[in-house]
């Protein structure tokens, strides 16, 4: 437990600034989504879109859900579900490929 679980023991992040980032990235995402595939191939477009979505997820989780300041145990609870999620997706994809 390196980090405190108390709200008052850390300085609150600038929530409005994070919101501005979230909106800005969303606008960029929509822009990238509309670029014709002849200009931006999907092999570039899709990872770009996923990367921007990933940054937004991290911003919300770290600052709005306070994972950056809260106990690591909460993060662990969330991470614990990830291997099962990956296995689930792999099983579905493998089933689809074999079909």
């Amino acid at each position: 437990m390196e980090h405190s679980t108390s709200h008052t023991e850390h300085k609150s992040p600038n929530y409005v600034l994070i919101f501005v980032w979230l909106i800005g990235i969303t606008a960029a995402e929509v822009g990238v989504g509309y670029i014709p595939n002849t200009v931006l191939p999907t092999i570039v477009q899709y990872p770009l879109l996923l990367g921007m979505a990933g940054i937004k997820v991290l911003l919300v989780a770290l600052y709005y859900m306070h994972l950056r300041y809260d106990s690591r145990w909460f993060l662990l609870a969330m991470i614990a579900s990830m291997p099962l999620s990956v296995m689930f997706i792999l099983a579905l994809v493998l089933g689809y490929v074999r079909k």
Partner: protein
Amino acid sequence: MSEMTHETHEEHIHIPENSFWPLVFGGGMFVLLFGMALRDYRMFITPVGLLILVVGLGGWITSIVREKVPSITPRIAGKMAMWVFLASEVLFFTGLIASFLLLRAEAVPGVDHALVASIPLVSLNTFILLTSSLTVVLSHDAAARNLQGRLKLFLLLTIVLGTTFVSMQGFEYSTLYREGLSWTGNGYGTAFFTLTGTHGWHVLIGILWCAVVLIRALQGGFNDKNYSGVEIFGLYWHFVDIVWILLFTLVYLMNTSAGLPVK
């Protein structure tokens, strides 16, 4: 773990009174889903299940509001319980998203043209949901600073924004139906409406939860020492927001018609 144990000991632990309302709610949910799975009696049994569910939920919420106790849940235990619940939700949505992506891979090319056409509307809806996340975190911040007026204002704004999101999703659905994309038309439509509809249900539940938190705030149930109810609700709402961030990208922006000019 020492800090966690220390903080838990300092908190007042309130155990809610025995209640049969969760059982009524669960029974209603069972009848509702059972009715939806039926072929012949669906139109009769589903509304009955919905009615039982609404009565159970109403009774449950009323009993919580009537308690008027400052805290129901120890802060750390409540937060950990919510994180574990959210971890189970990750698995739930993983299944739905994976199913959607696989069914889309099998769909006829161009079937998602209607979705591309709705991107401007959905972008606006995404902005609304992101704004609601801001109001939730600001209400949490207000509760931690014992700013009662701001707490109530931001909770009210969250309800308004959440309701707007769901209403606009309903409008989008009606447009998609007119364009020929329906729940029962093909696998793609089924997967799309199940995935986004499930998210919509989560937002609806969040709105109800926020209303309960607001009522408790109006009763003076939160202060700078005791605001776990706002914090735990916030975790749920932000998670629903995160799911939408992913759905917006995966369902709308990364589809087979993306990059094509919208008619």
